[in-house]
């Protein structure tokens, strides 16, 4: 029952932000939920199944564009978000069946190529997407601060949903099977696990989460263009956050997202021109000194403390 308790604590803490915080705090909290949602989504395929996917940026952009195009056709915003999630899930199932039989670096590269191709496709489909000009998707008739709250709660809801799914999956047959696959796929196969189905399922969960978040993001910023929403950093950041918090754990991605956002804010404010370099340095330090994430360090500390007392 403990994870559910932490989930409630998390929601309560977040829900307090719009009550007490100013606009800056609300913006940060929205980004935090966005990051946490991306990290939780990536964790299904990258953490649980152990497949180094770089496809997140493809799903993010796909979700953003599906939602934006449907909004421009006059569909209600909530419907477009759901459609984005479902569309990306179908897309991930098709792509997943094609590339999830690849291992290691080959899978990583194939997933990376999906981002490139999709970005160019969107760039080319000018009639629908405006191509390189981008798309404007204004949300008329709503005061700015109401909008800010709306998008914050939308992001929060999505994050909470993904966290709940993570808890359920990690205790279910699916989560168990994915852990087996990540540790020894051949042995998993011979033990009767339908590895293709399990991997595709994890890939689809991951795509669904990322795409809905991308869709909410598009509505939030109200203007999208291909290089922005298909930015490869949307693939890399969740990976770094999950590494920070601990691969394949339940709350690791959320903890990682919070720490990452804090670092990013600090770096952006103080080292604007070299922020990428500082981020790179952080990643290097993380891989070399904290390969199991900060979560593992905390767990070890508490374990040691428990042994001592």
């Amino acid at each position, binding site marked *: 029952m403990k994870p559910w308790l932490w989930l409630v604590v998390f929601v309560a803490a977040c829900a307090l932000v719009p009550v007490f915080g100013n606009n800056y705090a609300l913006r940060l909290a929205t980004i935090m939920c966005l990051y946490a949602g991306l990290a939780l989504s990536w964790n299904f395929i990258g953490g649980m199944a152990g497949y180094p996917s770089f496809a997140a940026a493809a799903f993010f952009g796909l979700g953003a564009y599906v939602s934006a195009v449907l909004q421009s056709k006059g569909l209600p915003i909530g419907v477009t978000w759901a459609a984005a999630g479902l569309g990306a899930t179908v897309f991930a199932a098709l792509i997943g069946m094609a590339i999830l039989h690849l291992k290691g670096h080959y899978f990583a590269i194939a997933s990376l190529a999906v981002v490139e191709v999709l970005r160019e496709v969107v760039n080319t489909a000018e009639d629908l997407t405006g191509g390189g000009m981008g798309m404007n998707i204004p949300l008329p008739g709503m005061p700015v601060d109401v909008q800010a709250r709306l998008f914050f709660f939308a992001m929060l809801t999505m994050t909470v949903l993904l966290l709940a799914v993570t808890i359920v999956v990690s205790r279910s047959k699916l989560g168990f099977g994915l852990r*087996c696959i990540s540790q020894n796929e051949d042995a998993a196969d011979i033990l009767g696990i339908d590895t293709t189905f399990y991997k595709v399922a994890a890939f689809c969960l991951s795509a669904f989460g990322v795409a809905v978040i991308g869709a909410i993001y598009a509505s939030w910023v109200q203007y999208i263009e291909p290089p922005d929403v298909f930015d490869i950093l949307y693939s890399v950041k969740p990976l770094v956050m999950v590494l920070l918090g601990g691969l394949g754990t339940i709350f690791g991605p959320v903890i990682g997202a919070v720490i990452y956002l804090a670092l990013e804010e600090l770096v952006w404010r103080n080292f604007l021109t070299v922020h990428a370099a500082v981020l790179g340095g952080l990643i290097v330090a993380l891989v070399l000194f904290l390969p199991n994430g900060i979560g593992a360090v905390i767990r070890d500390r508490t374990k040691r403390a428990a042994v001592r007392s």
Partner: protein
Amino acid sequence: MTALLELRNVSRRFGGLVAVNDVTLKIAEGEIVGLLGPNGAGKTTLVNVVTGVHPATGGQVLFEGRDITRVPPFRIARSGLARTFQIVQPFPKMTVVENVAAAALFAGRAEGMAEAFEAARRHLDFTGLGDAADQVASTLTLAKRKRLEFAKGLAMNPKLLMLDEVNAGLNSAEVEDAMRLIRKIADSGVTILIIEHIMKVVLSVSRRLLVLHHGELIADGLPEEVTNDRRVIEAYLGKRYAEKAGR
């Protein structure tokens, strides 16, 4: 006699190399069969062919009369055909009981996680690993890892259990323990195929031997027939020895 497992003219090629060549055999329910052959004879490849890891490039594999030649490994595993690995393959970061529970859950048709873990503990007790249940698999000694393979195989609730070199790397006391365990498993109604390259070990439990050499089945029969077969002696001891023995 309807065979539990039947191979009809099964071959497996890897590029130009023929690892298994035109093998035909039947295994009946309740048998303990030994599959022998010098190193590199194609024994493990044959197991891989049967379990669908490297499907046959020629011929047919039938299990309970059904053609499973092109069935993917996970389906074969679920249909009651289990194997252990020569090189033990646990999920290293999981505990012993989780390893076995995975087998029970995915192939052994346990309903839900709780039942799988219950079954897993039962199989661990049966194989004498009950005390190590909550240890992380990668910390086990080799002998215990081999036992874990047994437990995993059993948890799959198999009709046929193929044991690939379960004795490699064990000392003689451990081998005896393993043999005792194999007899115990056979008594519980599981058909067993033991793959070995040391003949002596198999003779203590098997009533029927198969011998594979250069990918071909060169003998199939009672232990005393097989051990006197000229081709078998040649394969194991060389041609000269066979001629000297005058057979």
